[in-house]
């Protein structure tokens, strides 16, 4: 059951072009990979919390990996050690875990939920992470992914790993399952035969399925709530 936690900032530092935030919420809770938390932005000009997928969990410590894109994440990046963040979660459905060999594809900040997912998968894990350029990642961050799986990088400018878009390098191969997270265009251009689950984004208001503000249209024309029916959807459900 989601709850509101006071999360004391233990660490909030840059990692490449991203920030890595770790908070302590005082107790250990169950979180399914792919679930997210809503962090309150303590500014008067914002009324919505901001959604962040769980990046990692250790005992009572939750970690988030985020990119500064606007006022909410900008504010967040300025929080210092000791600041008490108001954190609501875990929310959403989470990935369904299967055994066997999995491919975890992340475009940009889409890599965030894949670490905790990889940690929880019972079987071989291949990471395929894409970014615009090499500086997007810190070496330390990448080494954490390497610790739990095989890591392949793709950069748009070719400054690290393969050159191009991450989706060009998805091979059908012998995967039991593909998990993907990243911009909508990336997700839509995934073309594979294996079962795939993707994590979607949408502006989140309530976060628990009540307000119907976060809906996306599915292939069948039905509206689904990203915050409650998702954020994890079967790739085939997503309207193209």
């Amino acid at each position, binding site marked *: 059951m989601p709850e509101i936690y006071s999360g004391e900032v233990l660490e909030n530092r840059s990692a490449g072009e991203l920030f890595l935030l770790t908070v302590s919420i005082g107790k250990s809770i169950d979180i399914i990979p792919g679930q997210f938390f809503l962090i309150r932005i303590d500014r008067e000009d914002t*009324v919505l919390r901001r959604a962040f997928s769980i990046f990692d969990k250790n005992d009572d410590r939750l970690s988030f990996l985020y990119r500064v894109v606007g006022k909410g994440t900008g504010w967040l990046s300025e929080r210092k050690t000791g600041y008490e963040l108001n954190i609501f979660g875990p929310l959403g459905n989470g990935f369904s875990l299967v055994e066997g060999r999995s491919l975890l594809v992340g475009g940009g900040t889409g890599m965030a939920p894949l670490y905790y997912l990889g940690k929880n998968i019972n079987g071989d894990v291949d990471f395929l992470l894409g970014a615009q350029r090499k500086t997007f990642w810190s070496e330390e961050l990448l080494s954490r992914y390497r610790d739990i799986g095989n890591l392949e990088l793709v950069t748009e400018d070719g400054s690290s790993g393969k050159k191009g878009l991450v989706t060009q390098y998805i091979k059908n191969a012998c995967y039991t399952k593909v998990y993907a997270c990243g911009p909508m265009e990336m997700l839509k251009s995934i073309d594979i035969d294996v079962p795939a689950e993707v994590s979607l984004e949408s*502006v989140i208001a*309530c976060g*628990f399925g*009540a307000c*119907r*503000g976060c809906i996306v249209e599915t292939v069948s024309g039905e509206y689904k709530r990203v915050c409650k029916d998702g954020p994890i959807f079967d790739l085939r459900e997503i309207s193209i």
Partner: protein
Amino acid sequence: MSWNLCGIELGSPLVAASGPLGWGKEFFEIFSTDGLGLFIPKTVTLKPKVGNPPPRIVETTGGLINSIGLENDGVYEWLKLEDLYRSLDIPVMASIAGGSLEELSTLGEIMEKLDYIAGVELNLSCPNVEGENWSNNTTSVLEATREVRKTYSRLLFVKLPPKDNIFPYIEASRSGGADGFTLFNTLPACDRIKGGLSGPAIKPVYIRLLKEIMEEIDIPVMASGGVMTEKDVRDYLYLGVKAVQIGTAFFKDPDIAKRIYQELQ
């Protein structure tokens, strides 16, 4: 402390406004009624409504534009929540809207039979549904109110939009049988999407409109618009309203009612 909303005892002047918390199912799975005096589920229509296409929410400076379009599964699904509403330790007021007088009449009839409903809030002011805005002229406000009044005999509040000259609308609705008013629904706005603006940005505008009304006429009012803090609640209570609704603030703090209620003590 105890508040009285036209005969209904409220343990708190804080009301969960219709909409942000949906029909309450998901909210009350996680949170209690602590701090709340009244719960108003999201507006119910006779038939299910799919609502507007995405995107439905845009944040602006100090505010939020929403264009949900009254998405809901219709009154017959809503009736299935009877057990939930009976189990709450606070009264529940139903919010209804309809595209025709017949629909309103039927909804009134349905509500009349529900002893677990403390009253009805007739939503004549949703800015996000084409062709269903009854508040464009006083005649339709009168007719809509009268229609519900015909079939619904208990407490009837009418929720109106923020307008510069609201008096004739209030008069029309009163002569149609309204007991009180919820003032106001969201402020029409546009930033990428057309919708209704809520949140702190609108509060000074609503205080001004309400002040002029409260100074002029003596009607039971529930205030709605931009409440984020205890001070905001006090500002509204100071104008003489019976209760204060909270909407958008639940997004920032799902436990806002509890916190503000404690601060009010």
